[in-house]
């Protein structure tokens, strides 16, 4: 069925189809419509949606519910992510699957309520203390909001980790044509959470190798499950032993980084002989696509790489796109954040960041002009 819906609606559809049955959130524009829709839709499928008394309570409830057996999601914007910070660390430490939708608006603080921005990209990457890897997906349109929400749940459950959906106001609150049947057909199947066998001796963080993911068992279920915010051993017993702590950190790092390619979601339109690569994500990718179309029509050879998975960094895909290219254009609605990730991989090439932080979109003509593609 063809519908005309906004990105936030598509997030709600994706979450429910991915098996989300718990939502907690707190009002904040431009994420409030996810809260309101989840409160309307989740009870229909036997789920629970709660409005917390603040963001700290909302993400806290999600962690509790996720550990008790539900797939859980919360949604907010920049100021709310600030308050989520400590609990994101808790979710990492306790290996809690959780989807966090950040409908970005221009910050800092209340910022420009409510105008779009991509100012939280590196904020989400380094959202909490410790600096461990994060998984972050960025939708560029309404269909992506659906597909990437499903993917976010799958990654959260598969790797037992919090996953960010880096939406933003322009994607979340603009209505677009949405083909639900097509979206469902193209989205990955929902990943069912594997749980430990009832008769096993259960250890919450036991895994066969550092990059493997331990099985879950619902708290309050068949096993005595322990959960701690502190450094711990595989039984979740608190420890100060450097060797055990080192192994714990290695596990948290490896379970994400060793599987980076499995999480690789991107569109590549590489053109043989292209000297210029436009690398984009989120809403700016739409301007990038338009710019590429125009440049090619004018006879220019241009490659395009649109990243949907922005973290973990898709090094192989980016290096492939960089082959033979002498110039890289990176448009972003911030002061230049993700371009720093590209700089690490694009040694010797001219890098043209196109940055905009005045709440307006980067335009295709600006990409063409600044990128010397006219």
């Amino acid at each position, binding site marked *: 069925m063809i519908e005309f819906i906004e990105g936030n609606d598509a997030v709600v559809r994706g979450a429910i189809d991915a098996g989300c049955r718990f939502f907690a959130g707190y*009002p*904040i524009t431009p994420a*409030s419509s996810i809260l309101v829709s989840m*409160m309307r839709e989740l009870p229909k499928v036997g789920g629970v949606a709660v409005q917390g*008394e*603040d963001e700290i309570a909302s993400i806290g409830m999600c962690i509790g519910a996720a550990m008790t057996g539900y797939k859980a999601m919360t949604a907010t914007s920049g*100021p709310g992510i600030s308050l989520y910070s400590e609990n994101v660390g808790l979710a990492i430490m306790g290996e809690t699957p959780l989807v966090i939708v950040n409908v970005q608006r221009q910050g800092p603080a*209340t910022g420009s309520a409510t105008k779009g921005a991509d100012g939280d990209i590196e904020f989400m990457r380094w959202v909490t203390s410790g600096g461990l890897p994060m998984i972050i997906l960025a939708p560029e349109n309404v269909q992506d909001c659906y597909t990437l929400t499903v993917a976010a749940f799958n990654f959260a459950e598969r790797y037992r980790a919090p996953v960010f959906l880096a939406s933003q106001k322009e994607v979340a609150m603009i209505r677009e044509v949405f083909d639900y049947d097509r979206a469902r057909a193209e989205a990955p199947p929902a990943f069912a959470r594997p749980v430990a066998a009832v008769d096993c001796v259960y250890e919450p963080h036991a895994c066969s190798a550092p990059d493997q993911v331990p099985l879950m068992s619902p708290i309050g279920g068949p096993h005595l499950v322990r959960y701690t915010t502190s450094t711990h051993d595989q039984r979740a017993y608190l420890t100060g032993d450097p060797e055990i702590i080192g192994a714990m950190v290695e596990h948290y790092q490896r379970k994400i980084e060793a599987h980076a390619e499995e999480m690789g979601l991107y569109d590549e339109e590489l053109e043989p002989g292209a000297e210029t690569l436009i690398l984009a994500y989120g809403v700016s990718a739409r301007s990038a696509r338009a710019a590429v179309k125009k440049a090619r029509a004018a006879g220019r050879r241009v490659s395009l790489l649109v990243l949907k998975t922005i973290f973990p960094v898709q090094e192989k895909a980016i290096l492939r796109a960089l082959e033979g290219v002498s110039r890289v254009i990176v448009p972003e609605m911030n002061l230049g954040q993700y371009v720093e990730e590209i700089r690490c991989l694009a040694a010797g090439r001219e890098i043209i960041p196109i940055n905009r932080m005045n709440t307006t979109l980067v335009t295709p003509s600006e990409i063409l002009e600044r990128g010397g593609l006219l």
Partner: protein
Amino acid sequence: MATRLAPKELVTRGDRLSGGHRLCAGCGASIVVRNVLKGAKDHPLVVGCATGCLEVSTTIYPYTAWKDAYIHTAFENAAATISGAEAAFQSLKKQGKVSKDCKFVAFGGDGGTYDIGIQSLSGALERGHDFVYVCYDNGAYMNTGFQRSGATPLGAWTTTTPNGKVDLGKRQNRKNLTAICAAHNIPYVAQASVHNFRDLIAKAETAFETEGPAVLVVLSPCPRGWRSDPSQSVEMARQMVQSCYWPLYEIIDGRYVINYDPKAKKIPVLDWMKAQGRFGHLFKAGGEDILQRLQENVDREWQRLQALAQLGAVETPAGA
């Protein structure tokens, strides 16, 4: 209670919140602010304002409606930021680096006070800063599009307490913020309403004169969220007080004083609920139970309050 300011003085004093702000027609927030600031008399002020309708609507670029020093804080920390300002000011004053007098006041809506801001409010009250906290209470998150708050009454519709086949608006009772603040044993807590200017100004005067923390919880109609006629806001507030849903009272050093007792003129809550679309679904079949519970809650709370006031009267010598 009535203001000690003469009527002429009240009229000529002028407003410290100017006209031209963008609050909706029939909104109670600006009435609350103007009357509270009248109570500050000629004292210089530092105003803290939590994120919310009041904040966004009074500071639309390139204007501001505030004539006093003004700090916009995050949603959750108006009380914390104003208490930091007050502590620094007291320190500077003690060192002789400032000589002028200054009062500190923070405004927050019910979302920013009952819910996300209660921790910073509680901390500031317990630490005992010399400031006035004012909650303009319209019973939901109106700024973000009518989500429920801890102040939303039982049975009220909001976008996150919808009414349908299963639920008839909010399932839970509202918190009693005035009682929560009183439990901090601070020198002054009062409940007021936008319909009674003299009472509100008098309470603000007392609050500003009080040494230490003072809290005013003020009923503030919201025609958009209440689904009510903007021209009836003040009348509705009057009826809500007359029904004892929102009693006007003070807690002065722990002593309860009821400022208005409707006695035989007490009206049922139904009288004003009918005029508010947020309760419309309760007047169809199935809503009777919630309506009855609401009335029972109001009656029980009113009795409790009367008992507390009685207690105060016994402890305090006549005429005090």
